[in-house]
């Protein structure tokens, strides 16, 4: 059996006092809007199965990618106990003003069959250029964060995440 830090000593009551946790306001079930796709299949509409080099070329062409290791904070566990849920937070240093902000953050996993995880489109109204998500990683891989600034500059940082697969029984 595996362990996590015993940071869970706060009670639910404490938690609810500290945070406003809000339920959903409205759910609409499947409705065929412009985002719906034909029922027969959407394989063609998915991210392509490709090497990460092809993904990078497709997304950024031959534009120069500058070293973003000091401007981008890529926060991930060194070792992911479970590749199916790997939390990542990307924070890019930026004044986030209408004149100078981060326009996009791309998260890309080198070894995934379909390397692109997510593309975020940010606005100055966010105050900081911070996004987080949980990623599926098929195996130990480099994860890249690419930031596209409002002036078109591309910055990149990457980090390796080790993915452990089951021990015996897990």
């Amino acid at each position, binding site marked *: 059996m595996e362990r996590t830090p015993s940071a869970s000593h706060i009670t639910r009551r404490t938690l609810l006092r500290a945070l406003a946790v809000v339920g959903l306001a409205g759910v609409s079930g499947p409705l065929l809007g412009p985002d719906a796709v034909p029922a027969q299949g959407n394989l063609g509409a998915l991210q392509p199965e490709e090497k990460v080099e092809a993904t990078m070329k497709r997304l950024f062409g031959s534009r120069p990618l500058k070293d973003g290791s000091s401007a981008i904070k890529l926060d991930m566990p060194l070792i992911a106990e479970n590749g199916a849920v790997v939390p990542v937070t990307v924070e890019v240093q930026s004044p986030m003003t209408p004149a100078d902000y981060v326009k996009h953050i791309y998260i890309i996993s080198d070894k995934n069959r379909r390397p692109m*995880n997510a593309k975020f489109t940010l606005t100055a109204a966010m105050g900081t250029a911070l996004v987080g*998500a949980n990623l599926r990683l098929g195996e130990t891989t480099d994860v890249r964060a690419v930031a596209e600034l409002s002036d078109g500059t591309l910055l990149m940082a990457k980090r390796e995440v080790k993915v452990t697969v089951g021990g015996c029984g897990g």
Partner: protein
Amino acid sequence: MAEIGKVRIRVPSSIKQGDVVRVRALVIHPMEIVQRRDGKPVDKNYHFIHKVVVTYNGREILAAETTQSVSENPFFAFTFRATEPGTLKIAFLDTHGGKYEGTVDIKFS
């Protein structure tokens, strides 16, 4: 999955005007992965969230295009500058036409 589309949003309980507020949101969703038969991907209508849109008093402040490389029951974290009281809304759109929304009232203390 009975809970599909359940959304939870978390913001700090105390927000002051002008704060940059950190938000976490979770949606219950299978984020179906591509299946393979004889090594080839099967063409079917995979069910996953492909778009997330965050609006603050109706103005879009963040959007995300998401893929199946995002986990089942995805969570997203981001910040926004709380300039005025109102409503923060997060909408999750999936490939089967589902739209799941959560909102949170932004009030100043």
